[in-house]
């Protein structure tokens, strides 16, 4: 065991069992998977992406590139989980990834021997031909060999949620700067959210042996966290990563609610938050960066800061004999801290020459590590001393510190470019990169604890001032003020072997040199050519090192070389969290008619029409195929009476003294002359002259109209009308509201429809309700509306009642219809009925057709202006050879027509150049006993009686057709008026 006897923020009284690669270990509450494995002496935690090199944990935070695990089993398995952030829970199952058959004996480690052939650009150069081999052969093999964790292949059964939060001040990061900012802002009365990705607030305060306000920094952090949690205006969100900064002070964040517990008891696993903040204080800290030297990726080689974190926070010795390699003063602290804990430090190697570390261990200044050795983990290292000689040092852990990179990622999300600071050899955020966001502490390049506390407080005070809240003057607690000197040192020069920059994507210093040699020198090109920074850690460990190497090669400075752009998310976000609530039924809202349950209880097959669910057909006993039901339902309407729920059609209530004028302007035809108690069919164009929608509008009172729209266009038409009323003619006194959901509307169609209604409505005579008449009616004491309109070509009515009576009216009407030899019909029959009659839907009105194309130029009033009038006069829209609406029916041996077929002349090849039009709607017509269709044909109105072909090249159907009038059934309309 590598656990120190005391210390750390773990509960030593409780032991938690978990398994890693089948072996059982124990952890304590407060442990991460990484700390628990290290405590159990496990150093080997993964295999690298491309070369399958053995890898151990490098960091102690979310920037971890190596120790990625599969957590959980079956559908609950989450791959690519960072062991450094995953808390251990009772019975947790963890597995290593990207290895076969085992982590210790991975046969694909052979890739490492082949590495001279597998460098940057290898795929592009090698797998060029034969071309079709890429998808079929190369890619699957490469994907299997090079990879991360496996997906379970099963649907994710976990729950995810999404939520919104609002605050005055959002503080990102709960280290010294964030805590001080939170304390100050909270005391001033601001409503604050403090979000930290860790499960314990405190940041580096929990990882160091230092004092704040005269007490251990861990204790100070815990006390402040408790104090904050008790304040009503503070929301402390642990395990919450702010992943992106967006416009208007909106931030995305993922809260891991259930990832750390064995059974969440119904709580969601993760919540995706959208946090809206008036002010934001970014206190995300900094991440230490490694130094590139040969074989710097062996298990046991870790960041110095991580070694201290494991020691102080988890009470774990990362090794028993530790060496330290540094270019800054922080490295010395690592050596001192470990020695104080009784760990042997076998050497302190400082790349700088002009320093004198005051540490009681073998010290090498002006020296560098030039190699490491050991099987499946470091055992020794070679040091090139200042005089050039090579010295071997034994160590089972090498702590490396190459300086610190401020965690400025969020400040790049809106295009902000960072500023280079030579004194700390790092980029810091430029001010105002994100509106109303201030960066403080280590994220701002202020690495001392005292400096972080001061900056956090100053930013909070500024926020309070902007918010016009109470000014407070809290005392800055006493703390360490050492900023720590650093001299840039990125990689050890003049060495043999591969020095790793990007651990996750296996990119070495040499690969950058290859990219430079092959002229992929811009950082964006270099990144894509070598894949550096494109792994799940998004280059947190590697970008700076690679930039430095490239800038040395090009002779440009680092700021001249620039950085790649940081984009959201800061750390990987699971698709489940992003799609929270949208899986399965949550994918789209469902709109159900009031007769929905009634229909499904009768075995109706349902179909989606936009968001609506409508009954498609109602099978009767003995009917096994939809056509049987559909044909019967059509005949029922034509010969007796049918009942259909048409509530889904858009219904818009329009009122006001100028309502008639308004309708005149939005419809092509005149409505201001419509008398009370009358209905008129109307056609609506877009301003470019194309048909927007059609429908009927009823005048049900003085200055009171009810417009119907097609089901699909209800929303767009409503929006269009609002646009016309508000943006074009605000002087018109007219108001409108959608009443689609307030009224259930049911069609009763067929020669016996009047007979059916006669028992329900007092006066249903042709005189009271002539064709296109409407009026108020009472149905069993319920006030409703009756419209004599027809979408089937038969004598027909539509009855509207308040939605709460929809289902009972439906039931009553169908009972009466069945008594008359009729019954209910669905969408399929409705469609056949309207095609037989030549009525239109959006299959025809597809946004490319004019009123003239549909044979409705007569509906374009010449007496008034209306939307689309002028544009429809354009020459091209009046070309007689435009595709025009016609009917078609088969005349040859082939009796089938398929929707979507293209039309060609009888002797022409079915190729695009010969296209004469296309088929929009087809059906089998039981009335005409054959297939019929609606089609658009070039110059079609003048070609009635001619023969043409409908060709479907996909399904290989070629049908000789006669062009006919689109009104197949009762073209004179006698039945309608009967």
């Amino acid at each position: 065991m590598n656990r120190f006897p005391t210390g750390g923020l773990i509960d030593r009284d409780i032991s938690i069992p978990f398994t890693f690669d089948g072996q059982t270990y124990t952890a304590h509450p407060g442990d991460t998977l990484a700390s628990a494995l290290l405590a159990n002496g496990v150093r080997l935690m993964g295999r690298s992406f491309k070369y399958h090199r053995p890898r151990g944990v490098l960091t102690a935070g979310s920037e971890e590139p190596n120790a990625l695990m599969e957590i959980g089993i079956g559908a609950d398995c989450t791959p690519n989980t960072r062991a450094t952030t995953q808390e251990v829970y009772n019975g947790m199952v963890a597995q290593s990834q990207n290895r076969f058959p085992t982590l210790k004996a991975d046969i694909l480690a052979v890739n490492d021997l082949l590495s001279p052939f597998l460098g940057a650009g290898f795929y592009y150069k090698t797998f060029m031909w034969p071309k079709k081999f890429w998808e079929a052969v190369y890619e699957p093999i490469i994907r299997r060999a090079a990879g991360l964790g496996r997906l379970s292949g099963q649907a994710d059964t976990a729950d995810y949620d999404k939520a919104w939060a609002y605050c005055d001040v959002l503080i990102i990061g709960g280290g010294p700067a964030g805590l001080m900012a939170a304390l100050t802002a909270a005391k001033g009365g601001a409503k604050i959210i403090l979000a930290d990705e860790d499960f314990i607030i405190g940041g580096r305060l929990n990882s160091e042996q230092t004092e704040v306000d005269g007490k251990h920094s861990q204790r100070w952090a815990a006390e402040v966290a408790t104090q904050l949690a008790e304040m009503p205006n503070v929301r402390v969100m642990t395990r919450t990563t702010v992943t992106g900064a967006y416009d208007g002070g909106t931030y995305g964040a993922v809260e891991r609610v259930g990832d750390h517990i064995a059974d969440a008891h119904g709580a969601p696993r993760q919540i995706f938050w959208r946090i809206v903040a008036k002010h934001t204080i970014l206190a995300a800290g900094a991440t230490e960066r490694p130094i590139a030297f040969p074989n710097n990726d062996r298990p046991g080689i870790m960041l110095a800061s991580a070694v201290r974190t494991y020691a102080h926070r988890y009470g774990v010795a990362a090794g028993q004999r530790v060496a330290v390699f540094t270019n800054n003063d922080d490295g010395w602290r690592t050596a001192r801290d470990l020695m104080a804990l009784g760990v042997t430090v076998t050497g302190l190697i400082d790349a700088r020459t002009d320093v004198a570390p005051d540490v009681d261990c073998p010290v090498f200044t002006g020296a560098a590590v030039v190699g490491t050795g050991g099987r499946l983990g470091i055992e020794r290292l070679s040091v090139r001393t200042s005089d050039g000689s090579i010295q071997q040092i034994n160590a089972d852990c090498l702590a490396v510190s190459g300086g610190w990179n401020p965690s400025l990622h969020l400040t790049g999300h809106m295009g902000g470019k960072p500023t280079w600071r030579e004194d700390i050899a790092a980029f810091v955020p430029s001010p105002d990169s994100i509106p109303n966001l201030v960066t403080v502490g280590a994220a701002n390049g202020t690495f001392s604890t005292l400096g972080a506390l001061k900056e956090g407080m100053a930013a909070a005070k500024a926020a309070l001032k902007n918010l016009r809240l109470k000014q407070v003057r809290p005392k800055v607690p006493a703390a360490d003020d050492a900023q720590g000197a650093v001299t840039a040192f990125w990689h050890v020069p003049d060495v043999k072997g591969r020095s790793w920059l990007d651990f996750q994507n296996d990119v070495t210093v040499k690969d950058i040199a290859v990219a430079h040699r092959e002229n992929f020198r811009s950082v964006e090109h270099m990144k894509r050519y070598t894949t550096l920074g494109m792994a799940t850690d998004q280059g947190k460990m590697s970008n700076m090192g690679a930039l430095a190497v490239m800038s040395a090669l090009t002779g440009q400075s680092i700021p001249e070389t620039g950085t790649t752009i940081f984009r959201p998310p800061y750390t990987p976000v699971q698709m489940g969290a992003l799609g929270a609530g949208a899986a399965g039924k949550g994918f789209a809202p469902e709109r159900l008619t009031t007769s929905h349950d009634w229909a499904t209880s009768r075995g109706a097959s349902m179909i989606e029409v936009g968001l609506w669910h409508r009954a498609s057909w109602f099978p009767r006993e003995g009917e096994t195929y939809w056509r049987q039901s559909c044909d019967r339902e059509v005949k029922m309407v034509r010969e007796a009476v049918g009942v259909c729920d048409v509530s889904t059609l858009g219904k818009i209530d329009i009122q006001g003294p100028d309502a008639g004028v308004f309708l005149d302007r939005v419809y092509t035809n005149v409505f201001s002359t419509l008398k009370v108690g009358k209905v008129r069919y109307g056609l609506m164009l877009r301003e470019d002259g194309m048909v927007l929608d059609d429908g009927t509008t009823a005048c049900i009172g003085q200055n009171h109209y009810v417009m119907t729209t097609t089901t699909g266009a209800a929303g767009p038409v409503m929006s269009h009308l609002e646009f016309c009323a508000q943006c074009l003619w605000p002087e018109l006194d007219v108001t409108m509201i959608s009443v689609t959901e307030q009224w259930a509307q049911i069609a009763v169609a067929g020669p016996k429809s009047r007979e059916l209604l006669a028992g329900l409505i007092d006066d249903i005579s042709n005189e009271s309700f002539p064709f296109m008449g409407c009026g108020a009616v009472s149905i069993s004491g319920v006030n409703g509306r009756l419209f004599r309109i027809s979408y089937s070509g038969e004598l027909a009515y539509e009855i509207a009642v308040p939605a709460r009576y929809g289902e009972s009216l439906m039931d009553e009407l169908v009972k009466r219809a069945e008594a008359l030899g009729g019954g209910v019909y669905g969408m399929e029959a409705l469609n056949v009925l309207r095609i037989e009659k030549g009525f239109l839907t959006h299959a025809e009105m597809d946004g490319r057709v004019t009123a003239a194309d549909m044979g409705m130029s007569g509906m374009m009033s010449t007496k008034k202006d209306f939307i689309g009038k002028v544009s429809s006069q354009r020459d091209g829209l009046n070309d007689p050879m435009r595709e025009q609406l016609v009917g078609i029916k088969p005349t040859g041996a082939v009796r089938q027509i398929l929707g979507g077929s293209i039309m060609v002349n009888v002797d022409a090849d079915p190729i695009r150049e010969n296209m004469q039009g296309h088929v929009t709607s087809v059906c089998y017509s039981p009335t005409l006993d054959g297939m019929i269709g609606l089609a658009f044909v070039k110059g079609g109105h003048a070609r009635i009686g001619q023969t043409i072909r409908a060709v479907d090249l996909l399904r290989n159907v070629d049908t000789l057709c006669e062009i006919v009038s689109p009104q197949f059934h009762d073209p004179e309309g006698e039945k309608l008026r009967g």
Partner: protein
Amino acid sequence: MRISCPHCGERDHREFEYLGSAKLLERPDGGDRAAFHDYVFQRKNPTGENAELWQHVMGCSAWLYVVRNITTHEITAVKLARDVKAAAR
């Protein structure tokens, strides 16, 4: 992005639907085809501030005249389109 609806207050952009340039307020009177061609099809493509029409579809249904900086998404003015149109008359 957040838009301050004059009726409903500041709301997330997903409550709104974008239509296009506020030029759509300036529908020509009369039957001049060239004027309509310009109105229907011709749009400037500015960087920086642009006047646009948005509708608060998930709220009060009001059409809004929104001045938005296309490069930064900063919104500098939101008015009811009805008022803007009426003032222009």
